[in-house]
Every structure is written in structure tokens, then in C-alpha cells.
């Protein structure tokens, strides 16, 4: 039993009701004077900061500057990946209700104890046990901090996805990427600060997993595809670049006179100036986004490491997602999330056919993820890039039907790497069956608190006033998971 004596509840029962001295919004509002404006304050944060002396939120020194969130949509089975349970062999075929208390599940089709079809073996100097699903990830075991005691509150996908992404099971709350860019802005003049690379599967709950919610729309995710143009309307439709420039220049002329007429002696309204500036940024994104998506400058060996030449199409797609993630981080994009790609069966949601389904999903992501971590390490970027690997919940140690596993929010495994995280450690424990957490139970709010902490943000102090409350990503919850801090 471990409890951190230093942490305490944040004084008041419900911290979201406190007003804080620091209002990010007030600063942004100030920043909207002059070039860039409120939107550009995020998109062009560095510039805005220089121009208006607005510093990003830094409650303490940051370890991580960027985040890459590897979202394992559907829920990876913990007992088949990072949490070996030999007891499952021993009790194979038994009725779990004879062994422990079984909660209601989504499909309520409880079968018998199902041992993992995969063998585990130790990897790295730390000896981290990893199943045969993830040999490549095993090869970077010494970079990983595995948390085996994560829990969710929701046993079904949509609520659990919202919970994982926004800290609330309900639709419409701001996502962690939105909060992060709200707190820190972006470091790139030509790209959004928060990008989701969509491998083809948008998780249940849809794009609201990546929403800005009540935060200004500046902080919503831009959803890129890993192929083609990447982003909606980023492709110029004009016949020629010169034609477009002439068109925009003509519009700019109109804008100047419009601004002059409205400006009087006091200058044009801020909103107008911002909109004018945005057109420039949008124009630049027509170039910067294709440039970002153009992998031709990458060496063949790098592309090979990631799996861009894999004979397996899902692996190729996820490889380009991972490679893009690195390129985005290189360019200063603050928060990148990768979603899974279709492997022909379902996402990680194997209610049946566990062996084939999990194997196919693992095959798509294993090599690219390991390559991403090695690549970041080799480029000296891993220490400042927080990589997080997680699903929305785990799976039951007993079968659903004969050969599947149902949802299990009681316990699941996830890992973090880089960005101030201690490598080669395992935190928390589940019971003999991997069904419930028995040691160091953590919650999504704790994950969020930890991510923000590594970015230099105190999660209790990053607030936004909405609907009369000072809202937080972690609501009234969340404790930093100190065991993973380097």
C-alpha cells in the first residue's frame, strides 16, 4: 500500500470553483492586440510571446515540451501485453464467479478463465516482461515506465474514450490536447499546435474526443490524415499559385480600406486584425502542411525502421503516422495524437477471436512505435518528448463467449516514455488474475495530472472560466503519478 504523504486534497472540496489569480484567457485577450491576435497566440505562440511578453504557463520547470499520444483504440488486454498472470493457466476453464466477484460487463456473456495465448519474456536491462505481441516494443523496454494499475470509470467505449481524452465521460468537454495547447501554445508559426493523425479509425465518440469543448476554437485539434493532403481545405483550389496570390492580395486591399474606414483614429478592431492575420497563416499552411507530409526527405533506412516498406498495409499506415508524429514534434507541434488504423478485423476490441484480432492490431503498431522511440532517442528528442501509449480500458481475464475478452475498466496497463519519465520501471499491480488493481490504483485524472506535470503545468492551476466555474482538465481529481518521474 503506498500513499504519497505529500499530496493532499486541494484544500477546498471542489477546486473548480475557486478563482485563480492566473487567467490564461486574460493573457490571451491581451495578446490579441496587434498582429496575430488571439488565435495566433496559440498558433504563433512564440511570436505572440515576444510581441506581448506573454509567457506560457510554467508552474515549474518542464521536462517535456511535446506529447505524442499513441491511442490504442478499443482497449488492449493487459494480461496479454504487459501484465503477465500465470494464475490464469492454473485456473484455466474455471468459472470466474467461483474465484472472485465479477462485475456486470458490457455484453454480460461471462465465460471461463482464459489464459493468455501469448508467452511473456523479460526484455532489456530492467527485465520488463512483455508478451510476444510486442517484440519490437520490448526492445525499447528500458525507456518505458509501465503502469499496470490504471483504471477507468466506464465499461463501454464512448464514455471511456471521452473520459480518457477529456477527463469526463460526457461529450463536449475539452480534450487533453486542447488543454495542453491552451496552456502552452505551439512553437510553430505555420502549423496548428494540436494535431490528430487519423490512421482511419476515429474512435467511438467521434471527433469530440479531440474537441476544444468550451475552450476557444483555437485549441481544437486539427485532424490530419497520414496520406494525401492531410488536412481539409489545405489544398489550393486556384488554378495557379500566382492566381491565388493575386486574389488574396486583392482581398487584402479591400481589407485594408475596410479596416481604415472602421479604424478611425483608434485602429481597426482586434477581431478584424486577427482575421486578416489568419489569412496569412492559412496561406502558409498550404505550403507547410504538404511539406510536413512529404516524406521524401527521410532516408530509406529510417523509413525501413518504421515499417514504411512493410508488406503489411496497416503497418505501413501506422509507420507513416509515427514518422509524421516525429516530424511534427520536430517542427514544434505541441500535442500529437495518433489513432489506430483498420487491420481488417476490429480495433483492439476483441469480444471474440482474441488471438487473431490482437495479433493483427499489434502487428500494425509494434514496429513503428519502437522505431519512433529509437528515432526520438537518436535525435536527442526523446528527453523532451513525452510518449504515452494507452487504450481506454483493459479487458477481462475471463473469456467472453469462448475466445474473446470483454471490457474491463477495473484494471489495465499503459506506458509512458521520454519527456522526464523514468525508464525501465513498472508501477502498480493487479490481483492474481489481472482483474482488479490491488496496488497503486490510478485513474485517468492521475494520468492527465502527470502529463501536465511533466509539461511544467500544475493541473490544479490550469483553469478556464466557463459556465461560471473555473474548469480543469482533471475536474476536482488527479494526483501526479510520482513513481514514473525521472
Amino acid at each position, binding site marked *: *500500500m503506498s*500513499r504519497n504523504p505529500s499530496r*493532499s*486534497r486541494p484544500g*477546498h472540496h*471542489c477546486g473548480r*470553483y475557486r478563482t485563480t489569480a492566473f487567467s490564461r484567457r486574460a493573457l490571451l485577450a491581451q495578446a490579441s492586440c496587434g498582429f496575430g*491576435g*488571439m*488565435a495566433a497566440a496559440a*498558433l504563433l505562440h512564440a511570436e505572440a510571446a515576444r510581441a506581448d511578453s506573454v509567457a506560457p504557463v510554467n508552474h515549474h520547470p518542464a521536462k517535456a515540451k511535446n506529447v505524442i499520444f499513441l491511442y490504442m483504440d478499443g482497449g488492449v488486454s493487459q494480461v496479454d501485453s504487459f501484465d503477465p498472470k500465470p494464475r490464469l493457466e492454473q485456473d484455466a476453464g474455471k468459472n470466474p464467479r467461483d474465484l472472485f466477484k465479477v462485475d*456486470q460487463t*458490457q*455484453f*454480460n456473456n461471462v465465460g471461463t478463465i482464459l489464459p493468455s495465448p501469448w508467452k511473456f519474456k523479460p526484455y532489456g536491462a530492467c527485465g520488463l516482461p512483455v508478451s510476444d505481441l510486442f517484440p519490437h516494443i520490448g526492445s525499447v523496454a528500458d525507456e518505458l515506465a509501465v503502469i499496470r494499475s490504471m483504471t477507468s470509470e466506464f465499461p*463501454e467505449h*464512448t464514455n471511456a474514450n471521452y473520459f480518457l481524452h477529456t477527463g469526463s465521460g*460526457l*461529450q463536449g468537454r475539452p480534450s487533453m490536447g486542447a488543454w495542453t495547447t491552451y496552456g502552452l501554445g505551439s512553437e510553430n508559426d505555420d502549423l496548428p499546435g494540436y494535431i490528430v493523425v487519423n490512421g482511419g479509425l476515429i474512435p*467511438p465518440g*467521434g*471527433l*469530440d474526443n479531440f474537441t476544444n469543448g468550451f475552450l*476557444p*476554437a*483555437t485549441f481544437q485539434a486539427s*485532424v490530419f490524415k497520414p496520406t494525401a493532403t492531410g*488536412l*481539409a*481545405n*489545405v489544398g489550393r*483550389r486556384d488554378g495557379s499559385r500566382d*492566381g491565388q496570390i*493575386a486574389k488574396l492580395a*486583392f*482581398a487584402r486591399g*479591400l481589407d485594408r480600406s*475596410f479596416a481604415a474606414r*472602421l479604424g*478611425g*483614429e483608434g485602429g481597426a*478592431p482586434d*477581431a*478584424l486584425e486577427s*482575421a486578416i492575420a*489568419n*489569412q496569412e497563416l*492559412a*496561406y502558409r*499552411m*498550404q505550403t507547410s502542411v504538404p511539406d510536413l507530409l512529404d516524406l521524401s526527405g527521410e532516408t530509406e533506412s529510417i523509413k525501413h525502421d518504421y515499417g514504411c516498406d512493410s508488406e503489411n498495409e496497416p503497418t505501413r499506415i501506422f509507420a507513416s503516422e509515427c514518422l509524421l508524429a516525429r516530424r511534427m514534434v520536430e517542427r514544434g507541434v505541441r500535442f500529437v495524437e495518433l489513432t489506430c488504423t483498420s487491420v481488417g478485423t476490429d480495433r483492439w476490441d476483441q469480444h471474440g477471436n482474441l488471438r487473431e484480432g490482437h495479433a493483427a492490431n499489434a502487428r500494425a503498431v509494434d514496429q513503428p512505435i519502437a522505431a519512433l522511440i529509437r528515432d526520438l532517442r537518436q535525435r536527442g528528442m526523446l528527453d523532451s518528448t513525452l510518449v504515452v501509449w494507452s487504450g481506454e480500458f483493459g479487458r477481462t481475464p475471463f473469456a467472453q463467449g469462448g475466445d474473446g475478452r470483454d471490457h474491463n475498466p477495473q484494471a489495465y496497463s499503459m506506458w509512458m516514455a521520454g519527456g522526464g519519465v523514468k525508464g525501465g520501471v513498472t508501477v502498480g499491480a493487479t490481483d492474481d488474475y489481472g482483474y*482488479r488493481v*490491488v496496488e497503486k*490504483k*490510478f*485513474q485517468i485524472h492521475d494520468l492527465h495530472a502527470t502529463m501536465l506535470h511533466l509539461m511544467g503545468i500544475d493541473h490544479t492551476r490550469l483553469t478556464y472560466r466557463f*459556465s*461560471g*466555474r473555473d474548469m480543469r482538465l482533471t475536474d476536482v481529481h488527479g*494526483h501526479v503519478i510520482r513513481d514514473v518521474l525521472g
Partner: protein
Amino acid sequence: MACFKVGGRRGIVVAVWGALWGVLAAAVVGLTGSAAELPAAPSAADAEFFESRVRPLLLEHCSACHSRAAGEPEGNLSFDTRSETLGHEGLATPGKPEQSLLVEVVRYDGKLQMPPDGRLPLEAIATLEEWVRRGLPWPVEGAVEAGATGFDIAARKADHWCWQPPRAVPVPPVGAVGWCRSDIDRFVLARLEAAGLAPAPEASRAQLVRRAAELLTGLPADPADVDRVVADPDPLAFEKFVDGLLASPHFGERFARHWLDVVRYGETRGHEFDFPIPNAWRYRDWVIDSLNADLPYDQFVREQIAGDLLDSPRLNAAGADLSVLGTGFWYLGEEIHSPVDIAQDAADRTDNRVDTFGKAFLGMALGCARCHDHKFDAISKEDYYAIAGTLASSSYRQVPFESMAANREVARRLDNHDAEAQLRLGRAAAVLLAGGDRETVADPAARAARVAAALPPRAALLAMKHEGERAGGEILIADYSRAEGATPLIGDGFAWGLRPRPAGQARVEAGAEGQPDRLRLEPTSSAHFDSLWAGLQSNGEREAGSLGGVDRAGRVLRTPKVRIEGGTVWHRVRGHLQIFTCVDSHVLLVGPLYGSTLQTVDTQGEWKWVRQDLGSDLDWQRGHLIHVEYVPIAGGADVAEVVASPTEPKRADPFLAAVARRMPAEGADDAAIESVVSELVTEALAAARDGTLSTGPRALERSAVLERLLADPAIDWKGGPATTLLSQARELEGARATITATAKLASAIAPAILDGNGVDHAVLAKGSAARPAAIVPRRFLEAVDGGEQPVWPALSSGRRELADRVLDPSNPLTARVAVNRFWHHLFGRGLVPTPDNFGKLGEPLADAGARALLDSLAVRFREEGWSMKRLVREIVTSSTWRMQSVADPRAVERDPTNLLLHHFPLRRLEGEAVRDKILAVSGRLDPKVGGPPVEVALSDFHEGRGKPGSGPLDGDGRRSIYTRIRRNFLPAIPLAFDMPVPFQAMGRRNVTNVPAQALTLMNDPFVVEQSGRWAARILADSAAGVDDSIARMYREAFARAPSPDEVAAARGFLVAQTALQGGDFAADQRLPSAWADLAHALVNAKEFIFIP
């Protein structure tokens, strides 16, 4: 052993809510009593055990959350003092760790696990088990314990302005009297003058025309209108123009879109597969039509809260009920299919409804009081659950609103007819059976003997003496079988009649194979669906999932809502029926769970007890609130009784039971039984003769007696008197069919609410359905209505009363909130800048002058008949609204955010208006008002489950409000320009500036296509010269003519673009692609989307 304090009200609560925590609850219920006491003072050894082992453990592991020192103790459980801990209901059963919640949660055995961040060490768990085993010893504290932390509504009210009633304060004196057109101006000017500021000069008429057109209708001004108003010598020319805009149907479309933000309007249910809310657009059209008709705001509110309960609903010319359409309001939110915790899901959906209700009508964040008393406002959690009760009392339906009013009348006529028919046939049958006519009936004594001879053996009869009484394990859901005290009928139309059909109703039964027809009497009362209604037909979308399989609207019989604790329900029914037992108001039957709540049965014309087992999908530990809905599938149908019971209910034949009751317990010989039968026959015949057959407690028994007599083989059904009776019966049946033939069978349908019996809600600790506490009666906010309120009716939800209270003049919020919303839409910022939150955490009024202005508008709005159009007119014709949007730098320095309104704020069009304006200038706009939605045009970037087929790129030219609002696939252009995700009330939109907006205007295929179309339309006027065409485009886009410089610049641009595209402007002045570039450039100019 001492018992816990669960006395009085709380004990009852536990009983009602049932097995709250499984086996524990039974113990608690058992302990209910008035003599509440805590465990006695412990022995020295136990006290030592507590102090040395238990108290430190509680302090270290529990008190961080469960203590008053931490604010409000979590779950209202505090470990601070002996009485608070041991007095907490349901915490533990002394001496029985296995039956104690405390032990269960620390063992991590159940859903609730404490402490939440990790299981305690085993020895700590063992200590707590030992503590419970010893009977929870805790030494008595000497000091008086502190009471619960106070929540003082009166203090809260006194502390915040919004609870004080609005007062019409005198209009302040001003200096520049000549500037003022109205009281609004005097209030505004007084503030400006006090700050040493002057209002900005008046905008030009052309600017005002553009501003008014785009802000009042969301469409650009017609250049001809601009010219006309500018040239009009009438000083009231602008007022006339505004009147025209207010009379335009586009006014309703524009302001409807504003209101749809407030009510989180969507046409799908979001969540994983984004299932449709069938026919939601009927509500959208109701809003548009209401605004266009200038429906008074009080009626607008009343119809949304309780439009189904009005004494005289509004009908349109075709007789359709319009009022009920407003109640679609309640069901516009998200819904989840197959929620694992169905009760918690119900609590979450209710929360969204209560929260939306509070914000929309009261500007009050009621949702904040779901888990605890509001932290800052005068709203208690009891207030929240009092209002939640009105929703728990109601249910969802698709209403056949076109036929309701007509069929209500048909049902009334049928009801009268049936009463009359029964009277006449009863009398005629009595005469026949009394034996007055020897030709047809054998002598009465012989008849009694025949009836008696057909009775079961005496022993069996005696055993029935006590039958007919309801068994102990049954929970009654509905009983339509009684003549007196029957369950009131709740139907979603009138096909089930106005009340249950009484026993004794006569009908002609066709004889089999050469046998004559004969008369039968219904032996029981029942809710009865006459097959004459079988042709009912609803037009509209059906429900997704299993419920959509049958045409339900107008055919539903709904039982009251009842809380039950076991999963077996029995229905005594006759006919071919769909039976839907709605659990915790969950209706989205798609996915793996809750299939068992829906079942179809055909009893082949017989009365049967039908068993429905809900056990497998549901956890019954905590009980569920259910009601049953019956829908006939073919022919007629009857429902007599519905009960929850583990075993099949037993009901004796009412006739046999009556005989048994009257029989002497001993020595009853044949003669005695015969005499009992004879007595019953005499009484029944007398009742039939005097028309009281179906009334009174003995109606069933008497009908049964008569039915037995009619079955007497001695009756000659071919004889004269009997055939007369039969033809009389047929004639009455014919008359009945004639009435029913006037029914309106086909009707469009729309989402609406259905009223039911009153169900009071329990306060849920921390908002969790797993933790019900005290039940609160339905009522309105204590801050408005005080602590002592009249009890709301038990037989209806109380929504009618809720609407009354919302609109009562004593309610300080409603009129202010309404007025402020219009101010917000017309000025871009409300006098209260947070239109959905007038509470302490909303943004405050700028100053006392703003308050005076708001109050004055609110008071007059209410007193002068709640006219929304008149309010809009008053605001936009004021001098304040007519100021130009150029700010004086000195004013900006003094008041940088324009709180005092020294100039008109520059406005950016909403996404819907941007798209509509593009359609308007391109000429593609279809001005049709209302109707089914157009599917959203999808791009490659719309992703997700439940993805629909794409609609047309130009949305068929319809205004944006007619694009289907699919929660998970929102339309791209409105979304880029801050259309809110519809999840809760959003009276104030974000106005952001993101590059996606610029990218949209630069590259979106719709924008590019429509720009080309605009250019083509301009070029189609072959008579116009280049400069005229340029000027026309400027006037259409900006409501102003271009300056000579601008014409020259546009010409230069056309020349350059023509050249770039390989042409020569001198030779070809009408190259469509060059003009399309000009059109596209104008759309990209900020003046297109910013209104000065």
C-alpha cells in the same frame, strides 16, 4: 444490539428505494423505527481498541475526504464524530462485517472501492472488520458536536441581485435629449454622460439596412431595398424597413437558430453510432413558426415545458396540435444505447434536461446542484431533484400531433356512446333474463339450479373464500380491472379511450357452425383498444433499433411508473401486443443489452398472464423505476393488470369467489348454495335494470353472474325477444363504428413528452444513482417560492405547475433572461454577458445603469404581453443600435471593452449566416421555410461510426438551419465558424479566429462552386457594363457601392486574372473564371463576414 439511526423519513426512503446495497438494505429497513439510537458507550477495552487502532486509521486514510474539515464531506459521510459516523445510514451493520458496506468497500469487493487511490493494507482491512465485529465501539464525545454545515438560501438570495424582483425604475435624466429615441437610449446615454462620453454618430441608412437585414434575418440586404430606404424621405423609413424584416419568415429562421443553441438542438443522439432523434425537425419548425407568429414568450416557454398539458392547446387551421410540439425540447439531448449502468445513465440524461431547463429559461446553472447544494447560488440539491422529479414522472414518445385534437373529440363521443349503450343493453338483457318471457327463458328457479349444479365441488369453493386478494409478493404496476379505483389511463393518443372500459360491456358474439349469434358481457374491466382504431398510421421517421419495428405513435397505453426490485413482470392481457417495459426511461434499444424489455405476444383472443423476465440484462440490487407501454399489433387489445411478482399471480373467478364468500363455512348443502346463487342472480339483474351493473365494488361479480346467465343453454337466441336484443346491440355497435369512422387515422409524428403519475425523486448523493438518499417532493425553486409550497398533484408530473412557476410574476429571472438574450443577439453581448448564467459565477452586469435598463425592459416585456418582435423592434430602432461601429479613441481609452456602448460593436457572421449569405449572393438560395432536413454534405474529414451518406454539396440551396444536425457529423462551414457542439445550453457562442476559417473561405469546394455561380449570375446580365457588374457585386456583398478607386482596382484585378488565364481582357471582358475569381475574392474580404 443497538441499531442505527434510520428513523422517520429516511427509513421510508430506504424502503422505497429498495435494496440499496444488497443484503445490507434489508437490515436497515428492518431497523426502521422511531427509537433511533447509537451504539451504547463501549467497554474500556473496546474504547482502547478504537482509539489505538481504528481512529488513527480513519484519520490517515479516510478523513482527507470524509471530514467537514475538507469542506463538504464526500457522500455526506464524515468520520469526524461518533454521531456523524455511526449515524450515517447504511454504513455498517454492527457485528456483521459481511453485511457492512464499509467492509465491502475497503475490501474492494464491489463497484464502490475505498480509498479510491489504492486498497488498504490487509491488516488495516482486518482492523476495520474487527471494529464492525465488535459492534462499532466509539467512545462518546463530551463536547456538543457541530451540526451540518449550513446552506442558507435566504442569505444566498440576499447576497445576489438576480433574486431581487426587477423594478421599473424611473428613466434617468440626460443632457443630449435630442439624441434619444426611446427609453433604451436614455438609460444608455445617462451612463455615457456620467462617464464623460458621447455616443458614436449614427450609421448611414445603407449601413443600417445591411446591419438590420443580416442580424434580423441572417441574409444580406437586397440592393434594391438599400436604394429604396436610402431614398425614402420618410423619417421613419428605417422603422418601416425593420417592420418588413420582422414580417419576413426569415426572421424566424434567424432567431430560431439562436434558440436552438440554447436548447442543445440536435437531430441525432450522438454517442457511438449517432442514432437519429426521429422527426426532431418538427421541433425546429415549431421554433421558427412560433417566432414568426410572434407567439408571446410566456406561451413559447409554457409549450416547451408543458405544451402537452394545456387546457386549450393551439391548433392550426388543419386541426393539428401545435403546443405539444414544443415539448420536443426535453428530448433533444444525447442518448446512449446499451448503457451498462442504466440507472446512472438515466440520472445523467435527467441532469442534461434539468441543466438545459435551468439555463434556458432561468439563466441558472441548476446542474451545479446535482451533486451538492450549489456552491454559490441559492439553489439546493433538493431544488435540483424536485425539478428532476417532474421529468422522472414523464416519458418520451413520438406524438401524432396532427390527429390528437380530432381524436380526443372522437374518444369523448365514444365514451358517451358506450355508457349509453351499456345502460340500454344492460336493461334489455335484464328483462330478457328475468324470465318475463316464458318463450325464451326457462323458469328462474330451474336456472339457478343449473348454474349451481355447474359449480365446482363445495370443498374447492370453500378454498376460494380468500382468493382474489393480492398476494404479498406482488407489486402492483397498474390495475385496469377494477370498476372503482382503477389505475388512470395514460395513453399517447385516444385509441385506448378516456378511461378503462368497465366490466359488463355487451357485445354480439357470432355463433359457430349454424349456432345462433348471442350476446356476451365482458367479464372484467380493462384498458381496451378497439380494433376500429387498427388503421392508425403515423407518418415520419421511426425509432432506431427494436422499438422502431412497430408503428407505435397514437397506439401506446402507458402504465404509471413504479419502482420494482425484481426482474419479473406479469401482464394480464388479451390480444396481439407489443409489450415494452421501459426501465429507467431508457428507450434506445439498440445493442447487446435490454432486449428482454421488449416482447411480443399473441394470446389468440384469450385472457392470459404473460410473463416477462427482465432479469438477465439488469442488475436488480438497487431496483429500477419502470413503466410498461403496450402497443396493439393487429386487431383489438386489452390490458387488465400488470404486476411485478416472482410467481404467476392467482386471481379467482369473481362469480365463484362471490359464491364462496357467501357460503356458510359449514353445512352448506346444495340448497344453501342454490340460494346463494339465486341471491346473486337477483342482485345482478336488479343492477342491470337500474343501470348500476358496472359501478361499485361489485361490478365484476355482477357482470360475471350475468355472463353466466347469458351462457345458459336454455336461452333461445333465435326467439323474438332475444333477436330484438341482438339487433339492438348490433345497431349500437354500428353507431359506434360510425363515430370511429370520423377518427383521423393518419398523422405526422414528432418527439414529445408524455405525462404520467407523479414520481418524486430521491436526492442522489454525489449525483450517483447508486447512492439515493432522501426523497424530495416535486416543487419549484425554494429561492423563488419559499420553503412552504403547495403539494403538486400526484396524478401528473407537475410540469404544468412548473411552467406556471417559471412564468409567475414573482419569479425574478424569466423575463430578465429572455430580454437579455435578445440584447445579446442584437449587440453581440448581453447586459448580463453570460446569457445562460445570471448566478454569482456568471459575468456580472457592468453597473447599476445596466441593471436599471435590463429591469425596465424586463418589466415592460412581461407587462406588455411578452412580444418578442416588439422587443426586437424597440431595440433595433433605438439610437443606441443605430450608432456607427467606429469607436472614438478617447472612449476606447475610457472603456476599452465598450461596456457602456459608446459605439456599435463590429459583428462577425455566424457560420450558418456565412454559408447562407454565400448562397444568397450566388442566387442558389432556396427561400423555402421549414420541412425535413437536408443531409449534411460530408467531406473526407468527416469520420466515425454511424457515418451517413453525404448530402449535396450545396445543401439543395436550403438555409443552414435546414441541414440535418448530426451530432457526430456537424456541417463543416458552420463548425469552422464556431457552431457549438450541441451538448448543453450555449446561449453565447465563441467568436474565434482560426486559420481553418480562412482555409474554408479560400479552398472549400462549396465556397469555390458558389463563387463561380455568383459570377455567372452577374455575367448573365449581358446588358450591364463591366463597371456596373462590379458595382452590383459590391452592393450585393457589402450593401454599398464601390468607390471609384475600388472599381478601378477590381477592373485591374479582372485584367490580371484574365491575362493569367491566357486571355486578354480588352478582347474578352466576360471570362467566367476571371469573374469567379473576383467573386471569390469578395467572399474572402473581411467586409463580407464582418458587419459594421
